[in-house]
């Protein structure tokens, strides 16, 4: 299967290892992986800071770049959520719907399109999952704790992690409370952002996890910044890095 990688600008620049792990993983699962270097940013930071015109220009640009691609796979839930939930407002319903149907978050693509949950990874460590809010609630990659259901389904991200050889998933208190990043929020509201993040870091530390993983490198960069300042807490690894891991015991 041909896969066009959609690597968000901040992953490209600040977390390149996440993009590389995604490519490695998808190739291992039999995909032919391409990366179009014309891509830059989906426009999410402009949507959330109210810069609508700029967001619309970048969204139209994103649409052009990925015009011919059948499957667009991205290791960032919030960027996929931007395409799926914010683009209609920016580039019109019809174009947005077409693009959204071809755009997938990495884990979602593996489970829902490739129909795999065991990707042959081995990672013998205690890991806590940080559900990114956009992945959880806008892409429905998991079951939000506030949603009432008689039969909640296990989430996509969780299923992938549970299938990793040797990996022990740690329960954390208030498992799906936001980490406090929120893009520009993290610098416009630094005190509140750090309060929320500090509580998350404490919950993660209390869980006994050695690593924390998630579907958004941005949330993880924020948490890692807090962790290194605090000098304690589980190290961060993006989901792609764990799924690409073949660590020996």
């Amino acid at each position, binding site marked *: 299967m041909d896969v066009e990688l959609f690597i968000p600008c901040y992953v490209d620049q600040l977390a390149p290892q996440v993009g*590389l792990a995604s490519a490695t993983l998808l190739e291992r699962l039999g995909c032919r992986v391409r990366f179009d270097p014309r891509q830059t940013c989906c426009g999410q930071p402009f949507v*959330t800071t109210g*810069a609508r015109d700029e967001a619309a220009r970048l969204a139209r640009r994103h649409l052009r770049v990925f015009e011919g691609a059948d499957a667009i796979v991205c290791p960032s839930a919030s960027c996929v959520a931007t395409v799926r939930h914010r683009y209609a407002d920016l580039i019109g319903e019809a174009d947005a719907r077409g693009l959204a149907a071809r755009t997938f978050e990495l884990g979602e693509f593996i489970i829902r399109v490739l129909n795999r949950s065991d990707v042959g990874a081995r990672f013998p460590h205690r890991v806590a999952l940080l559900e990114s809010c956009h992945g959880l609630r806008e892409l429905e990659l998991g079951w939000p704790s506030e949603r009432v*259901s008689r039969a909640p389904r296990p989430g996509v991200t969780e299923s992938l992690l549970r299938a990793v050889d040797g990996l022990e998933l740690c329960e954390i208190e208030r498992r799906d409370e936001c980490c406090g990043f929120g893009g520009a*929020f993290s610098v416009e*509201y*630094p005190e509140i952002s750090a309060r929320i993040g500090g509580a998350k870091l404490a919950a993660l530390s209390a869980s006994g996890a050695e690593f924390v993983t998630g579907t958004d490198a941005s949330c993880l960069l924020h948490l890692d910044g807090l962790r290194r300042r605090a000098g304690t807490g589980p190290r961060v690894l993006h989901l792609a890095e764990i799924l690409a891991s073949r660590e020996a015991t």
Partner: protein
Amino acid sequence: MSAALDRRAAELLPAGERLTAHDAAVFALRVKRDAAARTEPDFERLREQARAIKAHALDHLDVYLERFEARAQAAGARVHFAADAADLQRITLELLAAKSARRVVKSKSMLTEECRLNPHLERHGIEVVDTDLGERIVQLGGEPPSHIIMPAIHRTRADIGALFEREMGSAPGDTDPGRLTAAARRDLRARFLAADAAITGANFAVAESGTLVIVTNEGNADLGMALAPLHIACLGIEKVIPGVADLAVFLRLLARSATGQPISAYTSLVTGPRAGAELHVILVDNGRTRLLANQRHRSALACIRCGACLNTCPVYRRAGGHAYGWAVPGPIGAVLAPALTAGDELRSLPFASTLCGSCSAVCPVKIDLHDQLVAWRGSDSPRAPSARRAARWAARVLERPALYRLAGRVTRALWPLLERRFAANPANAWLAARELPEHPGASFRARFRRRARPEDTP
């Protein structure tokens, strides 16, 4: 420069025990809400029904308002319309003056907070006593409520003990909730008996029967209405629902969403005045018809003021209600404030959110709260010119891959220098509590180009 709300949070709800206690007390409501919602077999369907009823009622608000007015008048109530806060203040004062009423007992109403009714009445020599315990606490403390259903949730037991000792002569150092409540009850009982008028809010106004529905846990609204010869109910025009049967949906959702109770302790249906007393209903617009005309944002009028979005909001819990600077804090406050208030002061509130979306997921009437926040951010908000310029420049770079690559390379080359510069700036918002990311090395695109293709490797 950090946002005003962030600075106010640091000042009004300082980090430490007070913050931890606030977060825990508010989150406990969210946990109770989850448990209570699960006792209702089809809670998600109820939410959808509630949304649909409210959407219908708002679409035909003119019809239902007129019907409510006619039926309520037929039942013996007098119905008044107030265009704005000043109108509400004036009408209320006139009604009180006509009866020479000087002493008023009041039950909880966020609308009267929004319209600043208490200070206005007090300026005109009326004694206003808030009778909801939480409201009474903040009234005695000389501060506004910090939560729409738990007005004093930012206060600790020790705060309240000290306040009651000063204001009601409770025993020094007594922080026992039972005894403090008893002290408040004794104090309030006398005031109920002496009141010339009772002012209440209303949770719903039923058009079909001209009935007001007033929900409390303390029975304080009921005691007020039952004793005083004059009852003035103040409510927003959006509170009108079509029929009594709709309550079967809303009452099951309201208390569960608010406090995790299956139903509130007191749910009173008031149709017309009691014998020998007067009932006046003041329906207040105060910006609501303007919001109703705004297709993108009108659904915010469906709010039934349960507070669930506050309780689940990570920002509200870490900021406290007072930091918002408006009567209604939290996600619903942030979407109502830009619509219902004049001026630019509160236009930044929609930015005070991580957009985690939990508010939208708990809202019993399914208001798309976090989408509304995004939409407000993108509407003609008075963004700082510097921010607008920065966005324009950033977009210019991102529209040109070559320029984007260059910007990335330059940043990487200067990384150590930037690190030092940032670290030397005590006002750097990222660094206040966090380290910068470690030097990432070459970009993904550079490494992807260079790396060995899998088919090349043995």
